[in-house]
């Protein structure tokens, strides 16, 4: 036991002395959470628009106020001619232009329909689509409001706004059809993204999986291989210390760091991103611990297979990180992958962990709904631990 204690102390010394690596390990989850949560958010804010209002009546000015009040738009300029629009687009000053036709209000009152044109900068298709969608929703809100008023008070004229996007934007957004007495609204474009930043919900379990994998697998395998490279492993093996306790003591500091990171991520998720832990906290921690063991044993296995730190890094990078990011469902949904990749993803531990965390933490479901994931992770832990111990013993013979 005394031997084991001096070992663990030594391992902590290694890590604490390498301040830069320690800092990276502790700060990385914070940066990743913030990056994924805010920067790589799929929402688009501050879409810069210009408005060409040829009608200048009370309906258009109402609609312009709606645009100005909307958090996704920032109205840069009110323009008066097509030439000005071209100029603004060319200078890249705006993402979209809203063009109201002449006699907008009168057309609504008389014909029950009026048209508005949305011209978006198609060179950035993502922003263009979003801009058109957000704009359409403003028109739809207006139509809905009128429709409600109409039901209550017949004095309000029936109308609809018909909006079309220009050939640059390339999407038809909303078509509104009126028939006498009622207003029917048929939206032809769905809201593809959640405007309430809910994207962060999906990233939190992914980042948890990624960080734990990085620390447990990559750092552990590097730490063990480093001893081989420096020749210190030999000295340890000649000593009376059991090989198993050498390995276990190497993993303990990383276990501690993993837990610190886990707590950091959960705290950040709850208090900064506003992602609540809807399910059981203890099950979340239990599943994370299980995943940490899977990753640690994977790191041990890698360390028995390679001879140099560089190889350890590459192997854990290729075997764990790449599939962990691409096939785990963190970036692309597994269900949308071709069957061959879906098959490969079965062997990616992160896929099951992320899925289990989503179930427990985000959906708030009971552990029964994540049972499959737990069993798979348990099996993986058993396989990896057995394999790495076997490899480790063989190497000694």
């Amino acid at each position, binding site marked *: 036991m*005394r*031997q084991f204690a*001096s070992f663990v102390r*030594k391992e902590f*010394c290694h890590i604490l002395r*390498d301040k830069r690596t320690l800092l990276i390990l502790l700060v990385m989850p914070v940066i990743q959470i913030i990056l994924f949560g805010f920067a790589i958010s799929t929402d688009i804010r501050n879409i810069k628009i210009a408005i060409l209002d040829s009608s200048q009546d009370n309906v258009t000015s109402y609609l312009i106020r709606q645009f100005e009040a909307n958090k996704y738009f920032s109205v840069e300029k009110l323009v008066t001619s097509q030439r000005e629009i071209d100029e603004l687009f060319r200078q890249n000053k705006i993402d979209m232009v809203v063009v109201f036709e002449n006699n907008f209000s009168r057309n609504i009152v008389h014909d029950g329909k009026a048209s508005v044109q949305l011209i978006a900068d198609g060179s950035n298709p993502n922003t263009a689509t979003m801009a058109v969608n957000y704009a359409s929703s403003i028109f739809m809100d207006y139509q809905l409001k009128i429709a409600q008023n109409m039901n209550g008070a017949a004095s309000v004229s029936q109308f609809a706004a018909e909006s079309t996007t220009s050939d640059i934007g390339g999407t038809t957004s909303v078509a509104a059809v009126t028939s006498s007495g009622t207003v029917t609204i048929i939206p032809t474009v769905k809201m593809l993204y959640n405007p309430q930043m809910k994207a962060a919900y999906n990233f939190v379990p992914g980042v948890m999986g990624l960080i734990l994998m990085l620390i447990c697998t990559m750092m552990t395998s590097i730490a063990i291989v480093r001893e081989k490279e420096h020749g*210190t492993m030999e000295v340890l093996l000649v*000593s009376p210390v059991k090989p198993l306790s050498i390995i276990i003591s190497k993993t303990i500091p990383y276990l501690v760091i993993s837990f610190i990171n886990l707590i950091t991520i959960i705290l950040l998720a709850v208090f900064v991103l506003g992602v609540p832990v809807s399910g059981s906290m203890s099950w979340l921690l239990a599943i994370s611990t299980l995943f940490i063991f899977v990753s640690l044993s994977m790191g041990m296995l890698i360390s028995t297979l390679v001879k140099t730190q560089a190889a350890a890094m590459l192997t854990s990078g290729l075997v764990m990180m790449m599939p962990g990011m691409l096939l785990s469902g963190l970036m692309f949904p597994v269900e949308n992958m071709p069957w061959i990749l879906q098959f490969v993803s079965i062997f990616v531990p992160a896929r099951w962990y992320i899925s289990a965390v989503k179930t427990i933490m985000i959906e708030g479901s009971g552990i029964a709904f994540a049972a499959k994931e737990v069993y798979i992770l348990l099996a993986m832990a058993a396989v990896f631990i057995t394999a790495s111990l076997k490899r480790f013993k063989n190497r*000694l013979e």
Partner: protein
Amino acid sequence: MINRDNIVIRTDQLTKSFGDFTAVDHISFSVEKGEIFGFLGANGAGKTTAMRMLCGLSKPTSGEGFVAGYNIRTQARQIRKNIGYMSQKFSLYEDLKVWENIRLFGGIYGLKEDAIREKTEVLLDKLGMTQQRERLVKTLPLGWKQKLAFSVAIFHEPKIVFLDEPTGGVDPTARREFWEMIYDTADKGITVFVTTHYMDEAEYCDRVSIMVDGRIDALDTPRRLKQTFKAESMDSVFTALAETSTRQSE
């Protein structure tokens, strides 16, 4: 010449094969307590493999071996408690301080904290490194690292210390100082089992064995080996034997 009661290493037809390749071919020899035993051989002659078997790192294919009275097949753990080991890489933790390295190895061999602290002071004083106790090992000159590594290897007062090419890359002055440490150690009754490829160092050993193609082709005191081979120096003895090798050197 050899006192049977004093034998600390004994092998009998010790053999290690990897498939068709016999790395160590039926070697038999004995080493006495307090002896400085030189274990020589060209690269690939099998000395590392033999040494690994004696340290309990590798199981023999056939034959027997006893180190410090324990069977290398079945009692590897007891053997490890009784031996020290130092490799050519000096095997210290570069990112630990001098005293932390000493404490670690003391702890590995189960010494108590108090004993470690006491012995550390004595050791640092003897090495003239008291000023350096807080320094990271990576900042030490090579000669000091080597001395420290050796001191750490015998910190737990083993019966035998195995030195695998301990003087590689060290300047002649440091090598001489190092051999003085080896003599001191042997005087204390610790057996020194050393591999080297410096033939002048072979002259410092009490007895020398020379391995060729997995066999021990010569084993005697340096003086008598030179007589037998009618050679001026150990270098000539070694060259004469190495030429008989049929095995490709690595």
